[in-house]
C-alpha cells in the first residue's frame, strides 16, 4: 500500500477527461436536464460511489489511511523541511563562511548568527540559531548561500512543547561520522530527477 | 393528581406571563411567553382536550412564537426595552376593576348552570375524532373561512415583509421610486 504513495507527487496518474455538457440556457433544455437528472437518478450514483468505496475499504482493505507515527510515507528528495548545515566532504569542516547573507535575507527574521575571526584570521561561526517558531521555510537562506552550506533537509517532524524553539548550529550540522552519507544538493530551483517524465505526461489542456 | 397538575401549571403560567409583561428584556419576555404557551397546552391536556393541546404546541409554541422570535431578529433583542411607563395607578385601577368584574361574572351562579351542551359528537370516541367530526360538519364553513384567512394573511405577510420593504412607494419621494424601478429593471 505504501508503494502506491511513492509516486504520488511525480505524476504517473492517468488523467481522464470528464465530458461536461454545456449548461442549458433555454427552458426546454433545463427541463431536459431535469428529466435526465431525475431518471438517471444521479443522486443515487453519488450514493453508489460512496458505498463502493466503503466496501473497498472494509473488505478489500484499500484504506488510504497511513498510521502516521507508526508508518511514514517516503518523501520526495526535493522535500524541504528543517535546515541542515553541510560539511566539506574533504576536510569535514563546516562549509559556512559566516558571510551573514542568510541572516540578512531571512524575511521572518529567524536566523541569527555571530561570527568572529579565529586565530587564522578566518571567519568562524560562534553562534548560529534558527528560530523555528518563526521560520516559514521559504528557502531564501538556502538560495542565497554562496557555499551551499545551509540547505533544507528531510526532517519534517518539528513539533515541540515550547512556543519558540531554537535550533543550534550543532544540531543542524551533519554529524561528522555521517559525513559519507551526506547528500549533495544541486542547488535551489534544480529540476527533479524525473522532470521529463512529468512534463510529457501532463496533457496540454491541463 | 389533576389538582396538583393544575396548580403547578397555573402558578407557573402566571409567573411566566408576569415575566413577559414586566420584563425589560425582549428575549426574556419572548422565552417566558413561549414557555407559558407550552404550559397552557398542559392545562389543555389536563382538561382532556388532547387535540387542542397538541395544536397549541404546534401552532402557538411551534409556529406563532417561533415567528415572533424570527421577527425579533430584525430588532435588537438583547438591548433592554426602554419605555416610559404610564402611572401605575391607572394600570392597577383599570386591570383591578376588570379582574373583579370578570371574576364576578365567571363565578356568578347564572353561568355554568344554565348552559346546556349543544354539540357533543359521538360519545366514546377519543378527542381528535370528535373534534374532526364536528369541525368538518357543523363548523365546516368557519373552518374554510379560517383557511382562506390564513392564506390571505400569508400573502399579506409576504408582501409586507417582502424584499422591497425598505423602499416605500407610497411616500412619493421621487428618487426613491426611481431607485426602486431601476432595481426592478436591473433584475
Amino acid at each position, binding site marked *: 500500500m505504501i508503494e502506491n504513495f511513492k509516486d504520488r507527487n511525480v505524476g504517473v496518474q492517468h488523467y481522464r477527461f470528464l465530458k461536461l455538457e454545456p449548461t442549458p440556457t433555454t427552458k426546454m433544455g433545463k427541463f431536459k436536464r431535469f428529466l435526465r437528472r431525475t431518471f438517471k437518478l444521479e443522486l443515487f450514483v453519488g450514493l453508489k460511489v460512496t458505498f463502493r468505496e466503503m466496501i473497498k475499504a472494509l473488505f478489500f482493505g484499500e484504506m488510504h489511511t497511513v498510521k502516521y507515527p507508526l508508518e511514514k510515507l517516503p518523501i520526495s528528495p526535493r522535500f524541504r523541511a528543517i535546515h541542515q548545515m553541510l560539511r566539506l566532504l574533504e576536510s569535514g569542516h563546516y562549509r559556512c563562511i559566516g558571510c551573514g547573507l542568510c541572516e540578512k535575507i531571512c524575511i521572518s527574521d529567524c536566523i541569527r548568527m555571530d561570527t568572529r575571526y579565529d586565530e587564522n584570521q578566518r571567519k568562524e561561526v560562534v553562534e548560529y540559531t534558527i528560530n523555528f517558531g518563526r521560520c516559514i521555510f521559504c528557502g531564501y537562506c538556502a538560495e542565497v548561500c554562496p557555499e551551499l552550506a545551509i540547505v533544507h533537509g528531510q526532517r519534517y517532524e518539528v513539533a515541540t512543547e515550547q512556543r519558540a524553539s531554537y535550533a543550534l548550529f550543532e544540531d543542524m550540522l551533519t554529524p561528522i561520522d555521517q559525513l559519507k552519507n551526506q547528500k549533495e544538493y544541486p542547488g535551489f530551483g534544480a529540476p527533479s530527477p524525473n522532470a521529463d517524465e512529468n512534463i510529457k505526461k501532463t496533457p496540454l489542456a491541463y | 393528581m389533576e389538582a396538583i397538575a393544575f396548580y403547578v401549571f397555573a402558578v407557573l403560567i402566571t409567573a411566566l406571563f408576569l415575566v*413577559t409583561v414586566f420584563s425589560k428584556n425582549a428575549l426574556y419576555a419572548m422565552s417566558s411567553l413561549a414557555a407559558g404557551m407550552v404550559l397552557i397546552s398542559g392545562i389543555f391536556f389536563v382538561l382532556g382536550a388532547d387535540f387542542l393541546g397538541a395544536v397549541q404546541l404546534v401552532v402557538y409554541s411551534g409556529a*406563532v412564537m417561533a415567528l415572533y422570535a424570527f421577527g425579533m431578529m430584525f430588532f435588537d433583542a438583547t438591548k433592554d426595552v426602554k419605555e416610559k411607563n404610564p402611572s401605575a395607578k391607572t394600570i392597577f385601577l383599570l386591570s383591578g376593576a376588570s379582574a373583579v368584574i370578570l371574576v364576578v361574572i365567571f363565578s356568578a351562579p347564572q353561568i355554568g348552570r344554565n348552559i346546556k351542551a349543544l354539540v357533543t359528537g359521538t360519545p366514546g370516541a377519543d378527542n381528535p375524532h370528535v373534534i374532526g367530526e364536528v369541525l368538518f360538519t357543523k363548523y365546516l364553513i368557519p373552518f374554510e373561512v379560517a383557511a382562506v384567512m390564513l392564506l390571505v394573511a400569508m400573502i399579506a405577510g409576504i408582501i*409586507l415583509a417582502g424584499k422591497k420593504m425598505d423602499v416605500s412607494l407610497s411616500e412619493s419621494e421621487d428618487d426613491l421610486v426611481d431607485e426602486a424601478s431601476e432595481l426592478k429593471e436591473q433584475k
Partner: protein
Amino acid sequence: MSLTLTHYLILSVILFVIGMIGVIRRKNLLMLFFATEIMLNAANVALVALSSYIGDLTGQLFALFIMAIAASEVAVGLGLLILVYKKQGTLDLDNLTLLKG
C-alpha cells in the same frame, strides 16, 4: 380540593388581566403583541374549560379558530412590525405619532 370549572375560569381571568396589564403598560409594539397573545390564550383556557366541563365541543372549536386567528395575526402583524421598524427605527408607541393632529 377537587377542581371545578370556577378554578379554570379564575385562572383564565388572572391570565387575561395579566395580558391586559401588559396592553396598558407596555409601550413597545412587540411587547404589545405578546400581551395580546396572553389575552388570547386566556380566552382559550376559558373556552376549553367550559367545553370540557359542559361537554360541548363548541368551546374547543372556538379555541381552534382563535389559534388560526392568532396565526394570521402574527403573519400580518409581524410584517407590519418589521415595516414600522425599518421606517421609524423604533417600535416605541410614543414615537409613532404620525397621525397626531
